[in-house]
């Protein structure tokens, strides 16, 4: 059996990279770099799928026939939920939507903060969640090191939040009876 058939039949472990609606060429080129591809392949991942968003850097596609990572990309999708669901690892920009959509699906997540953004409040959320061990947080330049050193077994599942406390406060404030 060729490597390709083995990958398709056997364990297909996809790394899904998403930048949401933004452009984040630094992340895409970091993921496209040889040592990141190597470390992902070494960790048992078979496919790398990159959602480019508005970025202009195009990674090099690969069939992965020679035992290396199979690489593919696309720009946008109306819903990345399916891609997240079928991923074994997600590498995402620091947008809160991407982060929580991934955490809700209980997928291992590495968040990469875009340092080119002005007023980078996004990093606050990523760093806080990393401190609480719900994900790993990196910058494009240390993505390789983070991936090499990470131990996904130490990640803690994220308990989904609840909007009812806010609703309670609002109702009480307005004088509506408690349910």
């Amino acid at each position, binding site marked *: 059996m060729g490597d390709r058939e083995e990958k398709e039949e056997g364990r297909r472990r996809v790394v899904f990279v998403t930048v949401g609606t933004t452009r984040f060429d630094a992340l895409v080129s970091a993921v496209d770099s040889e040592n990141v591809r190597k470390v992902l392949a070494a960790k048992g991942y078979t496919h790398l799928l990159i959602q480019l968003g508005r970025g202009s850097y195009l990674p090099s596609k690969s069939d992965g026939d020679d035992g290396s990572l199979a690489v593919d990309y696309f720009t946008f999708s109306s819903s990345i939920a399916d891609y997240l669901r079928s991923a074994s690892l997600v590498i995402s920009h620091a947008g809160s939507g991407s982060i929580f959509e991934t955490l809700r699906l209980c997928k291992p997540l590495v968040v990469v903060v875009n340092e080119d953004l002005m007023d980078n409040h996004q990093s*606050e959320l990523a760093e806080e969640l990393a401190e609480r061990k719900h994900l790993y947080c990196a910058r494009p330049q240390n993505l390789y090191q983070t991936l090499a050193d990470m131990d996904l077994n130490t990640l803690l599942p994220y308990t989904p*939040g*609840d909007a009812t406390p806010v609703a309670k406060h609002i109702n009480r*404030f307005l*004088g509506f009876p408690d349910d």
Partner: protein
Amino acid sequence: MDKGNGCSFSAVTSTAIISSVIFVITLILVRVLFVIYCSSRPMSRRAKKPVSTLIILGSGGHTAEMLDLLAVLQKDRFYPRFYIAAATDNMSLQKAELLENSLAAENGTPITNAGKFMKIYRSREVGQSYITSIWTTLVAMVHALWLMIKIRPEVILCNGPGTCIPICAIAFVFKVLGIRWSSIFYVESIARVRRLSLSGLLLYKLRIADQLFVQWPRLQQQYPRAIYVGRLM
């Protein structure tokens, strides 16, 4: 003597004008302080009927969080519902419309009664220079005034986008002038862990929001009048 009488007459008039102006300004100040004081306390009467509600939507994550909140609010209490989104934001109104239509379908009410949707000009686009923002904010204020005169909501829900500032400012003025008392609820975004957003900061410092909710404990330590409610998502 004529000159003397002329001088004393204009002196009296200008004193009268100055006194009146000071008097009016003092009245307004007292009224503003009174409004701020009342806004910070829960409504004294029990609510007996539904409250008209304006929901201000922002792009992306903001809309997702607002929809999370709307999901747990009793729809028969917050009615009728008006949605405003920035003119350049197409997705948010669509999502809200989907929510309202599915609610209408559940209850069997006609879809035309499900929520009302409006667009408003943005005060400022992301990355726009602060100088041109002054003009666009003025345009946004006029447009907001027009919309607020039409809607005059009793409750305003917002969670971050700059679109909420002109509307909340006008709601505050309406409160002071006695045109409409709106209770303004602001939920700071889940992405704000250590610092409030500009909108949140303005509404907090100027005491325009009746209640300001934060999702991370550090913010409540920094801003004691904020209410910590944990994560919504």
